[in-house]
């Protein structure tokens, strides 16, 4: 497949009111493409692997910007950039897990324009699909990654259903850990969805990675006060520290009382199509001290039930080791 430098002709809309953007999104539906920072957009279009007829640039919409305190936590405008999130004093102080996750996405230049909405809504990074092959996710009837010869080192360990691609988002696991609420608007209405239910796997919908329907726009992300100032752990393992997507990442928050873990949420990125909560580990460590003995007790639990492909077995010990680190950090 040839690579092109320029994008094909498209319409471009730059609404300044969210209502105008919503009516454009609903009118254009599948023919339109919402644009945040565009960092997960231009590659698709340059490669002709996706062909929207019109771009709806959301950046002029003031009401979708900014990070503010609310009566129960904070509200992050969907257009907040990853740089803004990683350097915002409120987030760094109270929800350092999210600041840390945002700070390891891609590269400084991409974080300077990449938005939180785009980061959680980005499509999977399976190169067969990205190259424009008509695999299951593209509407075809086979998976190029799930074959004995395929390059599937980066692919899924859990809950694959025809498609074995993983969630690429670094902020996704942090938002699920922090019990974030996603504010989704459409013409004449709004719904609020827990981050945990926002991401969907291929068994539910193989052509999308989130619950958002055409015509809907993610307008804000709310982080409740519940996990403010909690103990946290975040680590992303990737081939290079810059540009590369996670091979496995772990986002964890914990509350300890009298030295024992009262409550925790541990969420892995890049092991299945959605951020994966490690519920069995969360249950096992409840009431236990955050130390090596507890880490030993849950050794191997995170990767239990994994169904590795030809080249991604290494992700299993990686998951288990990240849990060890989270408990002993």
């Amino acid at each position: 497949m040839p690579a092109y430098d320029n994008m094909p002709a498209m319409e471009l809309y730059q609404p300044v009111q969210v209502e105008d953007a919503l009516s454009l999104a609903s009118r254009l539906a599948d023919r339109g493409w919402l644009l945040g920072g565009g960092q997960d957009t231009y590659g698709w279009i340059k490669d002709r692997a996706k062909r929207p007829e019109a771009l709806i640039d959301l950046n002029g919409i003031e009401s979708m910007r900014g990070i503010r305190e609310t009566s129960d936590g904070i509200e992050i405008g969907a257009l907040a950039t990853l740089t803004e999130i990683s350097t915002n004093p409120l987030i760094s102080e109270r929800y350092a897990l999210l600041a840390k996750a945002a700070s390891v996405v891609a590269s400084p230049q991409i974080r300077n324009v990449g938005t939180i909405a785009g980061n959680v809504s980005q499509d999977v990074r399976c190169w067969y699909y990205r190259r424009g092959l008509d695999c299951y996710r593209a509407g075809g009837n086979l998976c190029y990654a799930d074959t004995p010869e395929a390059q599937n080192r980066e692919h899924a360990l859990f809950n694959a259903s025809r498609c074995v691609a993983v969630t690429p988002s670094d902020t996704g696991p942090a938002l699920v850990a922090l019990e974030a609420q996603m504010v989704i608007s459409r013409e004449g209405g709004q719904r609020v969805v827990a981050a945990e239910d926002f991401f969907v796997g291929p068994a539910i919908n193989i052509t999308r990675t989130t619950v958002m329907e055409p015509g809907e726009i993610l307008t804000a992300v709310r982080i409740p006060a519940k996990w403010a100032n909690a103990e946290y752990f975040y680590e992303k393992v990737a081939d290079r520290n810059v540009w590369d997507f996670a091979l496995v990442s772990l986002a964890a928050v914990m509350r300890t009382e009298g030295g024992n873990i009262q409550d925790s949420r541990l969420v892995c990125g890049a092991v299945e199509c959605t951020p994966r909560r490690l519920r069995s580990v969360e249950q096992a460590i409840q009431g236990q001290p955050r130390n090596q003995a507890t880490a030993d007790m849950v050794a191997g639990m995170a990767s239990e039930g994994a169904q590795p492909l030809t080249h991604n077995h290494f992700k299993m010990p990686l998951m288990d080791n990240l849990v060890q680190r989270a408990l002993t950090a």
Partner: protein
Amino acid sequence: MTPKLTRRRFIKSVIFFGAAASSGAGFYLASAAAQRPAGGVERLVSLNVNGRTRRVDVMPQETLAHTLRYKLGLTGTKLGCNRGECGACTVTVDDVTNYACSTLTHSVKGRQVVTVEGLRAADGTLHAVQQAFIDELSPQCGFCTPGQIMSAVALLKTNPRPTREEARQALSGNLCRCGAYDHYLNGVMRASGQLS
């Protein structure tokens, strides 16, 4: 192999995109405007590049790198990958580094774009970063240099005396296939007066 390469799809797209191009080129107001959703962009725009206002005809889908290089003659901004993976195209927009290959020109209207050509003083004196990169022999082949310079300039604007580690972070979105990273970091330390 894929349906999008069929002849029918091709012809359809010519018809659709041809129509889109002609309306963009002129017949924008009056009746055509009534049928299109509000907010579509005008092609003739004013850009502020290196302190000057430039009037340019910009396609809706055009990237800033394309406008700079092929319409404004500012070829100091390089295209390496054109995919956000190398940093050769780094420019600053309102003092913040962006990949020009992955920025729509229409999104920088009303903002200050600076490229490597805009750094010298009026009398020709080089920017401290440019001079330091020469003194430290930072570049090898030089292809990544304009991008490295822009990242360093943006860093020193917000952090005039960075640590070497901070400089490493700030330049981490600029790939150098010659591997001259340490020489660039030496340059940043010299430009910030921390190396004599």
